[in-house]
């Protein structure tokens, strides 16, 4: 792989190679300073490649693992229209995973290897999917809060300096916007329904609110990688900045829903012109991240099982393709 070669033999570059390196670096620096786009064949610093690969593969894994809590309700969706929307949504997530794995592959990592790392517990995915979806209203809260937070995070990524990532995000954000609307609709319907339905909706919002705020990542003073990502035009806004914007949006939307957010400390700070929220339990965040959330092992086990049960199918497809190619070659 190109990235490994660059790492392993840095000292043995010939004068021509050194010149190419220098020209590549100059080009990279100019592209970044012009806020333009780096493409897969362009020279890039090793750390830039690694950061992107980590971020994009984590994002892809989040889509794939994120299918599970919602797939959990497909067979029990309470109306055929909702069933159909939910199926389409979970299917979109598989599609997002595919675009993102493809974007990551342009950085020199295969999808198989990324999947292997996920199953081996070596790769991370968004911690929020380690919480269980225990009621139908969770389909609403996940769409409204979790996808809502994802949109806030992801819309700026459409302008990420790495071309394949930015382009994948444009399409993903369009679909995420639909996902958030369907979540909002589910909650609105429940909130205007029977008292039991409304209670179901409120409980779901109560459970998903804090985890969704923590989706933006640790507070800025505890987020060591953010600064470099911002310098490379991958990340555009800080974690706290995005979190504050998200709170501001939710605080308005929750009124339309006729529900409340489980946070008495939300306020608009007139001085900073930013929305503020109550304290978040970052200890819990770290615990879940470290694998001690309610569903960590269940989620990975389900992925492992699907992957291993499908091994014979993938092998058959490869064997068949090889035989067909031989036939064509012989003809």
């Amino acid at each position: 792989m190109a990235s490994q070669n660059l790492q392993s033999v840095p000292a043995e570059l010939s004068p021509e190679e050194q010149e190419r390196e220098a020209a590549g670096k100059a080009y990279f620096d100019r592209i970044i300073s012009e806020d333009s786009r780096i493409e897969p064949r362009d020279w890039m610093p090793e750390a830039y490649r690694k950061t992107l690969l980590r971020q994009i593969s984590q994002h892809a894994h989040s889509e794939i693992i994120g299918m599970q809590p919602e797939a959990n309700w497909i067979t029990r969706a309470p109306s055929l229209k909702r069933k159909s929307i939910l199926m389409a949504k979970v299917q979109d997530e598989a599609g997002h995973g595919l675009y993102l794995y493809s974007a990551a592959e342009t950085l020199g990592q295969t999808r198989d290897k990324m999947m292997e790392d996920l199953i081996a517990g070596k790769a991370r995915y968004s911690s929020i999917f380690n919480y269980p979806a225990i009621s139908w209203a969770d389909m609403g809260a996940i769409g409204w809060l979790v996808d809502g937070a994802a949109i806030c995070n992801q819309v700026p990524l459409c302008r990420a300096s790495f071309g394949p990532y930015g382009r994948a995000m444009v399409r993903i954000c369009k679909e995420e916007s639909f996902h958030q609307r369907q979540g909002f609709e589910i909650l609105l319907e429940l909130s205007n329904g029977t008292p039991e339905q409304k209670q179901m909706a409120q409980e779901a919002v109560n459970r998903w609110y804090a985890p969704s705020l923590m989706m933006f990542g640790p507070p800025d003073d505890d987020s060591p990688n953010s600064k470099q990502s911002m310098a490379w035009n991958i990340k555009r806004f800080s974690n706290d900045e995005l979190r504050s914007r998200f709170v501001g949006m939710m605080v308005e939307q929750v009124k339309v829903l006729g529900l409340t957010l489980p946070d008495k400390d939300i306020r608009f700070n007139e001085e900073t012109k930013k929305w503020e929220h109550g304290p978040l339990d970052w200890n819990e965040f770290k615990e879940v991240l470290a694998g001690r959330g309610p569903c960590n092992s269940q989620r990975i086990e389900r992925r492992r099982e699907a992957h291993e049960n499908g091994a014979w199918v993938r092998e058959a497809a490869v064997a068949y393709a090889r035989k067909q190619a031989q036939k064509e070659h012989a003809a």
Partner: protein
Amino acid sequence: MTDKDTDFAIEGHGDISVGVQGAGASGDGSASATRITPGNALRPEDIALEVRRGQVKPSEDVAEFALRIGDDGLILAQRLGHWISRAPELEEDIALGNIALDQLGHARSFLTYAGAAWDKSEDDLAYFRREHEFRSAHLFEQPNGDFAVTIARQFIVSYYQYELYTALTASKDATLAAISAKAVKEVDYHRDHSAQWVLRLAGGTDESRARIIQGFKLVWPYVDELFEDDELTTRLAEAGVAVQPSSLRAGFDRLTGEIMAEAELDIPAVPQALGGGRRGKHSEFLGYIIAEMQVLAREHPGASW
């Protein structure tokens, strides 16, 4: 709900057009942001609207017939939906999910239309009928098994449905013809998908070949039931509304036979099961399928979702 209520535009994040119109724009009170279908495809909501306006109402016979094929799609969608997040490859999560969605879409249209005869909605029919009131054939309720069983089942289903919907596009019942015209285009893709996999699994590895042979053995007993005529289909065929299921058999045999021959697979020499799904006689599987499907709706009778 208006556009304004659900306007999630995010300011200052660049140029993102969501490409989704809110409810306010269409002027249809039942419209929603999640009812986006490209082109002029016929949606279950359109049929429901026609029913409400009194523009269409099926005869008792047509409703019974629509119930049969609607139940086929519904039960199969319920089965296929289980694959989403469990498929052998991401591409198959998407493909099987898509087929499930198509089947559910057809089911919703047929059930909405059928329900118009009895003043019932698609959801009344899906969630508040009991086992013996379902009219699906046994093939559709067969368990997913491994990927090979699912593909074998899907192969039979899609070739059967293709013949059926093609014939129904000439129905004298305009609604049946319209739903079928949309469905046949989608089922054509399902045929392609399952045929490709039959060839791959049969011609792949020893293991995949053994599994697809076993898969066909498990589902083939439920083929004959699909092509059985009865009093209802006889009356509808005479009226030019439907065709006798037996008339679809030759096309099915020829086209599936071509693929089976290419895959070097024999039609399994297994006895045909008695069937009876069209009369509400089901296997042990259906009870569990509908228990899971109906549980939440039945906890909250009369609720809107």
